[in-house]
């Protein structure tokens, strides 16, 4: 499976004396992406941990995802009461980076493919 992206770059050359305008041939750029990139999205999940403080977890969500306090607290409470919360979903690469950052703050975070 491939995704084709077309970009037409048009350049104009003018010849005022002759009163004509010539248009250069359009350039077509093709960008291909692997099947994996186009596959189902990935989820960043944070799991409950009895040691990490609620205020600390809220701060981490604010820092890592840039969430406002209310949203960060909502997710923190979801983790606390429900055992887990989906913090983000999307392409694999940014999801991996989010999980890495969360582990840097010592949170129990995993990356899961949406089934």
């Amino acid at each position, binding site marked *: 499976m491939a995704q084709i992206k077309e970009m037409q770059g048009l350049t104009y050359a003018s010849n005022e004396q002759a009163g004509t305008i010539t248009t250069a041939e359009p350039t077509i750029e093709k960008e291909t992406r692997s099947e994996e990139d186009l596959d189902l999205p990935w989820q960043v999940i944070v799991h409950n941990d*009895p*040691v990490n403080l609620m*205020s600390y977890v809220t701060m981490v969500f604010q820092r890592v995802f840039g969430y406002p306090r209310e949203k960060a607290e909502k997710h923190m409470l979801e983790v606390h009461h429900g055992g887990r919360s989906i913090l983000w979903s999307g392409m694999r690469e940014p999801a991996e980076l989010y999980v*890495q950052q969360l*582990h840097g703050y010592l949170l129990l*975070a*995993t*990356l*899961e*493919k949406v089934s």
Partner: protein
Amino acid sequence: MEIHRRKDQIELSELDPFLAELLRQIPTSADPNGVPAAEQRIFSSPSSGKETEICAEWKTYVEPELRRLFQTATETVATDLQQLNGNEKSFANRTLRIPSKHADAWLSALNQARLVIAAKHDFTENELNDHFRSPIGSRRDLSLFQVNFYGFLQEFILRELED
């Protein structure tokens, strides 16, 4: 013990020898080496187990980075803790000043220590939430007190970061 914000630092004053000793133990307590449960918790898996390729890459590329990150934090804390190693009388109360720019390192080291201690003793959620457990009668009780004391410090530092 008293804890205050003073300009660009957090000051812990009137630290009795017992609390000063608990603080001195942060870097050692944060080390998960030799405790498989603690190693497993500090360097937890990035996937629920189905994604073996991700786990293998993680071990090779990410885990060493995390080790460095955690080590840097504990080293910063260990340097700040040298203030407690003066030539004062051993039973005199001490003061510790934590520069605000070290707040993140302290949050990390305190968290590492709490997680390692909790994993080592396999504390239950009920035990961790029992803040009125006393007196300290065993090594386990002391470790639980240590986890709660470090948690109290974390809360204070977090409040300071919010202001």
